[in-house]
């Protein structure tokens, strides 16, 4: 870059430093909006700015996508959550390996559709396969869940974990004693081997929430399964109550959810009830506030 270019850049930077807080970039506001439902901070100016920013984003994230950039990565993560809801089990868990290519296009005024070629990893058997997927993020006043379709992923989904799943199922069907004592993983990343299938189950159940909550402005992973408790088996389905901590990379928040779900080898995971817990302010633990 020539000297003139450097001077221009320095000049630009100098100008920015004199900006005041009312020119907060819309992306900051939209992050805030998606991260915490009870935002009270938005001013009319910021709301207007959000619309502007989304228009800019539309232009940028349409057409062929750079596979290592965030739009394709976030959409691909949604595919991971979808695969786990449909095919995940205590012995089958899917991870995103790589995005090979991606494409995005607007669909009238109803939302944006992504087409992705990704490689997916079944973590427990350490198998990889290439898949194609479509993710549709609906746009609207009410936040709706994305819709996912996956194709050419059949080999991965045929992975046989039946004997392990059946053994676990039989073990706990009549022996309703599961109640985790430690978080999964614990602070040191450790998981008791006997608890590992329930960690997987917690992730699979969480995937329903992560799938529902995902937008183009989120990137969810399970931060930790705080606890899982087994309840009475119902209709031949193992039934569980669990408390999970999710991590949204974009807002850096840790949303907490409680869930009621069932599982059997034949039925897969079915979520019966979910409830988001309020954002915990650590001041609530301080004696002086009460």
């Amino acid at each position, binding site marked *: *870059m020539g000297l003139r*270019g*450097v001077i221009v*850049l320095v000049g*630009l*930077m100098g100008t*920015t*430093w004199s*900006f005041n*807080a009312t*020119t*907060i*970039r819309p*992306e*900051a506001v939209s*992050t*805030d909006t998606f*991260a*915490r439902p009870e*935002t009270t*901070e938005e001013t009319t100016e910021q709301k207007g700015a959000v619309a502007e920013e989304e228009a800019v984003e539309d232009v940028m994230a349409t057409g062929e996508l*750079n596979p*290592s*950039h*965030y739009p394709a*990565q976030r959409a691909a993560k949604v595919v991971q959550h979808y695969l786990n809801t449909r095919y995940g089990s205590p012995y089958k868990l899917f*991870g*995103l390996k*790589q995005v090979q290519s991606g494409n995005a296009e607007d669909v009238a005024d109803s939302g944006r559709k992504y087409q992705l070629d990704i490689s997916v990893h079944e*973590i427990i058997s350490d198998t990889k396969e290439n898949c194609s997927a479509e993710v549709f993020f609906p746009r609207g006043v009410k936040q709706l869940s994305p819709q996912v379709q996956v194709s050419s992923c059949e080999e991965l989904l045929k992975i046989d974990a039946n004997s392990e799943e059946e053994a676990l199922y039989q073990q706990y069907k009549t022996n309703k004693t599961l109640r985790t004592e*430690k*978080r999964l*993983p*614990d*602070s*040191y*990343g*450790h998981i008791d081997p006997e608890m590992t299938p329930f960690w997987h189950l917690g992730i699979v159940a969480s995937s329903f929430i992560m799938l529902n909550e995902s937008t183009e402005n989120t990137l969810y*992973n*399970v*931060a*930790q399964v705080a606890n899982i408790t087994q309840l009475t088996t119902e209709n031949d389905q193992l039934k569980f109550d669990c408390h999970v*901590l999710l*991590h949204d*990379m*974009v*807002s*850096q*928040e*840790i949303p907490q959810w409680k869930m009621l779900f069932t599982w059997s080898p034949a039925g897969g995971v079915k979520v019966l009830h979910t409830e988001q817990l309020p*954002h915990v*302010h*650590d*001041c609530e633990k301080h004696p002086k*506030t009460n």
Partner: protein
Amino acid sequence: MLSVVGLSFVALLLTVGALTLESDRAEYDYFKYHPMDEISSWMVQMEKDHPDVVTVVDYGRTYEKRTISLLKIGLKTEAKKKAVWMDCGIHAREWIAPAFCQYFVRQILHAYKTDDKMAAMLTNMDFYITPVLNIDGYIFSWKDSSTRLWRKNRSPGPSGDCYGVDLNRNFDANWGTVGVSSNCSSNIYCGTGPISEPEAQAVAYFVGSRKEDFLCFLTIHSYGQLLLIPYGHPNFTASNYDELMTVGQGAAEAIWRVHGKKYTVGTSPDVLYANSGSSRDWARMQEIPLTFTFELRDNGTYGFELPEDQIRPTCEEAYSGALHIIAYAHDKTFNGAAAAAAATLWAVLLAAGVSGANLM
């Protein structure tokens, strides 16, 4: 009689053995996570074990009045030295980062005695390494299992009823413009103003008062397996963007060669999200040419609670990546004159050859 002699002999051997044992073989486990008091003791021990090379430097205070310290590592010379900055643990829950800083220190202290390249680098440059910058936050994340995922520092908010500023949004680099929240409850709360936080002030003052010396500034985080280059604000491109990308790709390649892990290289707005007020951006604005954010393992499976059996491989690959950047910075500065002269000579010869060919 003989047994008494035997016992005394054994005792003598043991004593001699203990004296000649290098203290850094005295069981500090670099592949376990350590609480703050152990890290502080380790820093003091490093200085004791390598008094000619390592100095503990106190350079600030946290909100809760704890001393922020770094290890200054370098061989003493008369010449003016350049500098490398590395900080770990700006975000409390990213435990693998402080683990890496400690590992990095161990590695360079082992390497320089036998590796000429490292010896040269420690002769020409001082390494300033802060194992834990956000000490209050780190200690809080060790308190119990419910605090493990704390991110920010521990200063009380404006009304004293919510805690913590995201230190990596608090630096004076397009502060408060993008990828932040003005709400104290948010994990990306940027504070009441640029470098409102004592931890950020410590870095800004120490590095700022020596900024011409610094060749590179590396800030270590987790997770995501990324190497991020400035700037976090989508409207600004670093003047040496191409160089940063090239060096970054080289570092990612070096990382991949160790254990096959893929790290993505790019600006934050491209590969992660837009943000402002990061220490990396601030450092680049001080004209420190090579500034990188490392986001270590993993990709979300364990996230912040990376298993201890992954500490070693993560540190090994990150060390390789960091060294690539540091060696590049060093060679550009200290072999640069010779390389530039050689390049000019070749250019002249080529030009003469071409014009000669045209004339014929």
